[in-house]
């Protein structure tokens, strides 16, 4: 069965932690292995930290998180409503400088990462896919 769980949150550190805990607990409950669930939790956590760091000047702002359960995978989509920017490239090797390291770590933990803009909404969306 395909379903999506959607939450609206603020990017303060306590809420970010609660959000990644929710992703971990949900995918674990849905049968994902401990190792893969931890990897998806960390990828989600880094994506939320990125939203906090890059989208909002004072660190806190609204983010939506959609967790979708598909037959073959779990998909976490995080959208921030920050200033419009062009989507960054996902580095293919470990960056020498801090910029991009979060994205690199995310891409190494999951099976697919996409960063997109949506003409109708402000900000960026990151979509991460973890196969079951």
């Amino acid at each position, binding site marked *: 069965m395909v379903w999506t769980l959607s939450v609206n949150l603020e990017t303060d*550190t*306590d809420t*970010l*932690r609660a959000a*990644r*805990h929710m992703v*971990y*607990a949900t995918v*674990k409950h849905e049968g994902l292995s401990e*190792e893969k669930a*931890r*990897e998806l*939790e*960390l990828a989600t*956590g*880094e994506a939320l*930290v990125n939203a*906090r760091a890059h989208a909002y000047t004072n660190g806190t702002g609204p983010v939506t998180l959609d967790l979708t359960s598909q037959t073959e995978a779990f998909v976490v989509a995080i959208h921030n409503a920050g200033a419009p920017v062009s989507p960054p490239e996902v580095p293919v090797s*470990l960056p020498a400088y*801090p910029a991009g*390291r*979060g994205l*690199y*770590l995310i891409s*190494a*933990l999951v099976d697919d990462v996409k960063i997109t803009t949506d003409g109708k909404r402000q900000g960026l969306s990151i979509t991460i896919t973890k196969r079951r």
Partner: protein
Amino acid sequence: MSGPDPGVYPMVLFEIRTEDVHDAILIHVHGEVDLATAPTLQDALRSAIQSGRHVVVNLAEVTYFDLSGFRVLVEAKDALGERQALAVSGSTPLVHKVIDIMQLGTLLPVAHTLPEALDLVRSHG
């Protein structure tokens, strides 16, 4: 009806215990290292480095470790004195994976056990 699995998230989300073993300071980290808790690890590392002794960070009981933890370790390595060494020990699958992906082993000695980590810092020239 069964209750939640108590092993999934421990009551203590984050705790640091510092142990003094004459020539080294061991920093035992429990729980989750993230944006909110990394500054506490940073403080513990700064005090340990100020002592002038070797430092070992034991991550065996760590359940979450993000880039803020990684940054604190790299920063600590840069603050070491000439006669000091810093090593990391313990690796749950997740911590091992982060260390691997971020190539922490190229910056710091990484050991699987505490005794191995102590040997590594003590062999520092």
